[in-house]
């Protein structure tokens, strides 16, 4: 285990001498009022000939919008942050964030074409520790096979205090290397013991496949997963060492990215056209429910990443109090509740839309992130992307918004753009969790301004270099 020995001071300093090219300011969202106005004009026989009145109305509308924007201060929420020293080339994080009962934030950092890392942040010591690269931890270093590039699924904490997870591959080469010697060897089930700092490798679960969705259930002491690309539902029984493959759940381009587990150890996922399945560990059987997610009808193609299917839930969290899941689906970031115990037909309820208001009604509302967590204050915290966000594949370097939904009052609120104390915007996140003390953490991208260029970057979002960071929202979730 390599300790990065980077201790942070409470004050965030900004390097004013940083390269100006790397200081691209975040774009603010463009208003859509003008566009809609233009679309409503009556059709004309000679559309290129405009009347003076049309021009006047259009100009007036533009002036109004600009004036309103100029006068309306941008609402912001400030988050603290920590980068991952020595790991500036890590290029993504999806779902892999868990704050243990020890208060440490466990993080999986991804690196396409190279080794991912298991890292944790200790808030008591304010330091970040690199447990190691996943290929080495898997015992595959030097084999010349596809690297263990990611932890792409949720961590879980066992009754023994260990942190359980499964690894994932990075590049798939259009599956041309699937099952070949140089291809990805397969996901490893693993456990990290915070007491010893050691990782136990339970071996490969399903050959050649990664685990891009997963969850750990402390009740049955099992690591669950959905594999990529063949979308099999699999699990590892830690006590017995048994590895089970229950077969295919979906197509590779529409594997849901979150498995939810209720208090009884039942495992839920979504598949097909907004359907939900449940795996019961008592019967070892998968059952498909009648419930349907509130998926918005597909329209024109957005040219989105092919594996962003808009047919499943993106993320869910289990609420021990109401014994319901709360989740955000993929097509329009619709917030819903899912009550497994409710009668068929009333299990799923729409609660709102966790999208930036200006984008919510648009067809191209940014793809929902995985950044949903339930605070101790009974509020759901969701980091909505300001533009389509997926690290280097993002549509723009636009600030994320923190959106909350109060389970007590039903109030949904956009708390504003997420910014660092130095003014930099959070450019997107894809994981969230709530600490025992109520602190809320996110992992995502931030513009690389202020960081030494020699360390490198995770990539660039439309020309803006970024690196990964742990974002810390204090005093909100209590």
């Amino acid at each position, binding site marked *: 285990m390599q300790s990065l020995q980077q201790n942070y001071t409470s004050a965030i300093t900004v390097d004013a001498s940083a390269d100006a090219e790397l200081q691209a300011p975040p774009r603010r969202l463009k208003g859509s009022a003008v566009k809609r106005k233009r679309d409503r004009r009556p059709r004309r026989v000679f559309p290129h000939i405009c009347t003076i009145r049309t021009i006047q109305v259009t100009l007036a509308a533009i002036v109004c919008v600009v004036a309103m924007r100029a006068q309306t201060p941008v609402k912001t929420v400030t988050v603290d942050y920590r980068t991952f020293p020595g790991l500036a080339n890590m290029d993504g994080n999806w779902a892999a964030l868990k704050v243990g009962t020890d208060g440490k934030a466990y993080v999986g950092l991804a690196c396409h074409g190279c080794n991912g890392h298991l890292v944790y942040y200790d808030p008591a010591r304010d330091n970040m520790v690199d447990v190691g690269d996943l290929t080495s931890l898997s015992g595959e270093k030097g084999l010349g096979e596809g690297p263990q590039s990611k932890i792409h699924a949720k961590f879980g904490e066992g009754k023994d205090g260990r942190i359980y997870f499964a690894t994932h591959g990075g590049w798939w080469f259009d599956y041309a290397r699937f099952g070949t010697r140089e291809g990805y060897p397969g996901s490893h089930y693993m456990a990290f013991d915070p007491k010893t700092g050691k990782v136990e490798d339970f071996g490969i679960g399903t050959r050649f496949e990664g685990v891009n969705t997963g969850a750990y259930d402390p009740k049955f002491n099992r690591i669950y997963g959905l594999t990529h690309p063949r979308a099999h539902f699999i699990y590892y029984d830690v006590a017995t060492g048994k590895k089970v493959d229950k077969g295919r759940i979906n197509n590779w381009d529409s594997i849901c990215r979150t498995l939810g587990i209720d208090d009884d150890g039942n495992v839920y996922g979504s598949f097909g056209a907004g359907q939900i399945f449940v795996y019961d560990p008592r019967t070892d059987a998968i059952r498909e429910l009648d419930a349907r997610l509130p998926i918005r009808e597909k329209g024109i193609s957005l040219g989105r990443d092919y594996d962003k299917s808009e047919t499943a839930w993106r993320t869910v969290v289990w609420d021990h109090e109401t014994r319901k899941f709360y989740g955000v689906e993929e097509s329009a970031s619709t917030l819903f509740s899912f009550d497994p115990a409710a009668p068929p037909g009333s299990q799923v309820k729409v609660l709102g839309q966790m999208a930036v208001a200006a984008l919510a009604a648009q067809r191209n509302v940014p793809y929902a992130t995985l950044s949903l967590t339930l605070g101790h204050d009974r509020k759901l915290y969701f980091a909505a992307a300001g533009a389509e966000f997926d690290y280097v*594949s993002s549509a723009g370097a636009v600030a994320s918004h923190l959106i909350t939904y109060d389970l007590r009052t039903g109030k949904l609120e956009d708390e504003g753009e997420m910014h660092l104390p130095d003014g930099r915007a959070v450019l997107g996140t894809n994981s969230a969790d709530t600490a025992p003390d109520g602190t809320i953490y996110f992992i995502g991208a931030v513009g690389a301004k202020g960081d030494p*260029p020699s360390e490198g970057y995770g990539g660039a979002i439309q020309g803006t270099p970024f690196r990964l960071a742990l974002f810390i929202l204090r005093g909100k979730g209590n």
Partner: protein
Amino acid sequence: MRRRYILCAISFMIFTAAACCQRDLAYDNVVVPQDRIDARPLGYPPIDVIPDEESGNTSLTVAPNGDVYGATSGERAHLFVFNPRHGYVRPLGVIAGARSVSNALVVSGEGDVYIGTAPEGTILKYTPLREYQQPIQIGKPLTMTNLGKPVPDESIAAMTIDRGAGMIYGLTSPGAHFFRYSIATGKSTDLGVVAEKAPFGERFEKNKIMSRMLVVDQQGEVFASGENGSLFRFDPKKQRLEKLDLQVPAVPGRESWNRVDAFLLDPSGMIYGGTSDGYLFRFDPVKLAIVNLGKPLSQDRIDGLVRAPGGRLYGVGGDQQDMARVFSYDPSAGVYEVLGFVDVNRRPYYTWQAYVIGAMACGLDGTIYLGENERISKLYLFYPPAGEE
């Protein structure tokens, strides 16, 4: 210089990341051409469809009238029919007691459907009757006649039919018995075994090795593969099962674990076959000569092999943990073409890729059918280029 290096690196990262994430033209290149393939669910989703975990398609056969029959394996086995003109799969019912029907579905000249089951090992007869006029009732037991067990305490592992002779032939598991069933007399005969013992292997490997299909040639002789990858022949005139001095192509040293996955009788009288080591071969049943045609894919297994109008062969390979690819072979030129993954992209309506193919058949109109064998499975229709006979 340093800045230029950084910008170049960033540009490279943008390019490579985009290339790895998007389904662009590059991915179209690795799958079967989309103007030649489509898929059908096994019924009418979401209700009237063969359920997941019961839909693994492990048998396909074409009836004399052109209807395509299929059988599934899983928690329960189902029979379905596909009428090419009608266009959708019609589930016919549950094959009571069966969990698997593996290349063990044949149709007689009269149109009766014979099903060889596992693990029961019975032959069941289903007589079609106004199938498309009956409501779909998923879970309803199929009305069949039980024709008995050809070999006691054995499952049926494969079946084929000599329509002219009214004779069904099959293999059983685990004993690797070769049997015959006479449709006229209703009598089964155990003709011997094609494997005496399991090959040397790890201690958990206990299965005898035999072919996953059988084939009847133009003289009515029946062929299967058995131990050591050897071909076996049953001569109905001599009423004798014999081991031939012929081994199907294998990676040298792997003969004892090699088997024929798929057989195909060509109108020329030649028999084509694909082995579990992934070789295609041509077998002359008169001269008793095998020609190794090489490996169409770098993968193992040839799970299906059919002949399209015009004479081109189509097959599919890739084992259970792999991703299946379709290939073609032109016997006249001796040329292979790898056509890619079995993938249907009809966004935004449906999209699906099959990873494991369990059965393959060619319809009377030349449409090639591929049956997917996974927890969730569909029937694929592949339209090969028109060929003149």
